[in-house]
């Protein structure tokens, strides 16, 4: 029954001669293999076996959006306190979040404005919110805790493939990976497990905004 609850996927490719496997994992760590097409790759099964037992999570929640959400909730709570019970209008909430969204790559740990507070001034109602830099950083760390935990776990497992004489490469993409905190953490994990510096997709595809 638990297979239906947590169906996570994990694909390994043995590109030459094509063998593609889809592995479904249950919450209790069990794995089921599904072969998608013709099996040719001799090594594939052993690679998959090496990685399968530890990949009980294909993905976790968390990221820059959760950070923004948590910070927003903090601001809205402050207003509730300040106005003794009346809520901010959706428009004002949106203004605060948009403002943070613009600034968030510069705020937070390891970022250029790591010691700056987040300040937003509303015109109507006239009110200024200030979230202390240490709080902004803490919320960022909270929002990224799960993804970074998974990342470290995966990098550790991945590093175990290193003894086979095959080069290893880590490619990182996604909006949250543009934040310096994520980049610094990933670089540190790679150094810890003696892997080459990760490649960030925005470095070679480029920012286009």
């Amino acid at each position, binding site marked *: 029954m638990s297979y239906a609850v947590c169906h996570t996927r994990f694909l390994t490719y043995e590109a030459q001669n094509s063998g593609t496997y889809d592995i479904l994992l249950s919450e209790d760590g069990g794995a089921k293999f599904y072969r998608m097409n013709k099996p040719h790759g001799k090594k594939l099964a052993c690679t998959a076996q090496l990685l399968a037992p530890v990949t009980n999570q294909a*993905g976790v929640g968390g990221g820059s959006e959760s950070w923004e959400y948590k910070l927003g909730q903090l601001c809205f709570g402050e207003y509730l306190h300040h106005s003794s019970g009346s809520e901010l209008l959706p428009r004002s909430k949106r203004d605060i979040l948009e403002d943070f969204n613009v600034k968030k790559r510069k705020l937070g740990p390891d970022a250029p404005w790591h010691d700056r507070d987040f300040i937003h001034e509303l015109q109507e109602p006239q009110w200024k919110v200030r979230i202390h830099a240490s709080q902004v950083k803490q919320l960022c760390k909270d929002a990224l805790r799960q993804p970074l935990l998974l990342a470290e776990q995966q990098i550790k497992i991945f590093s175990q493939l290193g003894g086979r004489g095959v*080069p290893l490469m880590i490619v990182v993409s996604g909006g949250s990976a543009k934040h310096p905190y994520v980049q610094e953490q990933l670089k540190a994990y790679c150094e810890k497990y003696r892997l080459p510096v990760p490649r960030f997709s925005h470095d070679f*595809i480029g920012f286009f905004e």
Partner: protein
Amino acid sequence: MREHVGQEGSPIANVSQQAQSGSLLVNRRVWAVDILTSVSNLSIDIGSSSTRAGIFTLDPEQFMHVECRTKDHSSCRYQPGEFSSNCYPFDDNGPTYLGGQPDPSRQSISAKFIFYALTNKSDAIFRRHMLDYPPAEALQHRNREPAFRARLRSGLVGLLTTVRDSARQLCKVMNFSIQSIALTIPAQWNLDFEALYRELVVEVFDCSPDTIFFYTEVEALAHTLVTNHAGELDLSVEHPELFTLFMDFGGHNMVRTYNVLRGLSHTLFNI
């Protein structure tokens, strides 16, 4: 191919994914059918902030973006031409999906989180999900109300209908028809999510469930990066074998995939 990066989610991945989920699908079809016919595939990628769609045709081999007809310049979170992922299920003051013209006076939520509310009938499971996805907690209090659930569903239908109308418009102009639909989903979405998504797409596009295919976001991303950016990744025949770990840090979640790449003189991903 146009590549651009917004501020939220994982747009590099997502924008490229459309193209790629197309190619993946074509590859799989070629394997299955073994005849190169004129194939056109619509791919849809629902992100936390915006939804991207594209059509991939095999003959001629090309990828076209399906663009939102109403341009929204009021948000810096995504590019004009992308579809807003925001739905408005919380009040009865208008439609639950407004396309590219947001109403800042109404409370909104990303379509991505609506999937969590609609698939998890049990409160316990929903609560567990919300530890991971706090933005979904706005849905929790009213998740048991049938009328509210209907509004949530109509938000998703509204989004897909808007994509469908733009896609059909493009098909009419370019004179081809959609034969299959590729949908990208987070790796942790289970079969319940796929069932709901499939049901909605069948309803909106009036197509057979057999023409719908799911690809995880990171799977599509890995495929795109390797196919379109092999040079930048220093992949070459001099290093015929390489283990690669792909990690996608989206706004919504983080996922990963492992890939064993070898034999670059051959197709890298020969699915």
